[in-house]
């Protein structure tokens, strides 16, 4: 029997320490931008289990290839980033919009607030978009982003990363995260990566080198699977 609209199956609450606390003092900007009062837990009504349905109709041909456009090839190491979007119950999330953004190979964002004196690349905007297929698979072709300095603390450098934004099927499944690269020596020093208390949860933010998608003579492949909250219901099957 399908659940009544008034009593939808709720989404599972995060497992202990797998999500970061709002305040994490080593990441200095959290100190004035994090709620200080306790959050108020809500049961999941229709308002929480519904959400905007963005899928393939919001993606144009080529939106998932950040290496084309602007009349030339960007500088840097070409990479393919592939993966699946699943829910916590292991089910693929099909036709789910993914928005990505990143710095260029020199570690510079095409953004007026980025004052790092590394060069911009006239052939790289760092913006991409795609939707998962029926089995939850997605793929981007891009340039490996550079590390860059930031002002969090003395000699602070961000590890190389891509930003990902997803909606999933509900207001409750909204996720913004970052993908990192294996073996990056900056990871142990990065307060953003390290704001996630659970080590395994943290390490799931690191993509894996993937020979299956690596294209000979062309581009290294990295695999990054993304898990969205799943519904906390016992299937009646």
């Amino acid at each position, binding site marked *: 029997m399908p659940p009544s609209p008034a009593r939808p199956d709720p989404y599972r609450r995060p*497992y202990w320490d797998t999500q970061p606390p709002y305040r994490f003092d080593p990441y200095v900007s959290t100190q004035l931008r*994090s709620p200080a009062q306790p959050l108020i837990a809500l049961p999941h009504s229709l308002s929480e289990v519904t959400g905007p349905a963005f899928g393939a109709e919001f993606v144009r041909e080529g939106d998932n290839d950040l290496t084309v456009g602007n009349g030339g090839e960007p500088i840097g190491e070409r990479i393919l980033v592939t993966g699946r979007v699943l829910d916590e119950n292991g089910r693929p999330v099909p036709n789910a919009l993914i928005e990505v953004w990143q710095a260029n190979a020199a570690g510079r964002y095409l953004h007026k607030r980025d004052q790092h004196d590394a060069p911009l690349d006239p052939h790289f905007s760092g913006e991409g978009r795609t939707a998962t297929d029926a089995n939850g698979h997605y793929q981007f072709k891009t340039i490996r982003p550079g590390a860059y300095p930031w002002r969090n603390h003395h000699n602070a450098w961000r590890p190389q990363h891509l930003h990902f934004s997803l909606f999933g099927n509900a207001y409750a499944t909204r996720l913004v995260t970052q993908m990192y690269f294996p073996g990056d020596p900056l990871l142990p020093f990065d307060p953003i990566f390290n704001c996630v208390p659970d080590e395994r949860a943290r390490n799931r*933010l690191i993509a894996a080198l993937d020979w299956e998608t690596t294209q000979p003579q062309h581009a290294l492949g990295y695999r990054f699977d993304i898990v969205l909250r799943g519904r906390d219901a016992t299937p009646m099957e």
Partner: protein
Amino acid sequence: MLYATASQTVGPYLHIGLSGLDCADLIAEAPELAGQRIVIEGRVTDGQGEPVPDGMVEIWQANPAGRYRHPDDTRDLPLVPGFTGFGRVPTGPDGGFRFVTVKPGAVPDTAGGPQAPHIMVSVFMRGLVKHVATRLYFADESAANAADGVLSRVPADRRATLIAQPAGQDTYRWDVVLQGAAETVFFDI
């Protein structure tokens, strides 16, 4: 069982990747929409009262009939062509945001009774390692607000932070205060 991927901040350069879905006017594509057209204006400020000029506000709401455009909302209520119920804007240099939309109808709570009309709000910015989730209610719905199950979970002295106040013809004012004495109520959803 798998575990949901950890949230990470959007950082300061979020607009590179997220501006493509910007939508400040939720009703522009919905000429058949009935109901009260409204403007929502506000500012996002931090724990020292400083504006947040590098953030993003998303909203999600039902249409005036109280129907969400979503497969889980199977109730026999009309959808409105061109009205998705989703909005997204960057905050301005003064931390400001503004949406043109329509007042939502009531949707059911988990006991089957009506919730007071409300808009779901998510706020993202550098310094937030995961977005904050809150709700906007309307001051001119005082009877519905008094009976609302979500508002009743909020300590009485903090409820006002969730209630948008009239600020001119069909305009409501509602600010997001991240931290401090007037801190907005945020929800664990």
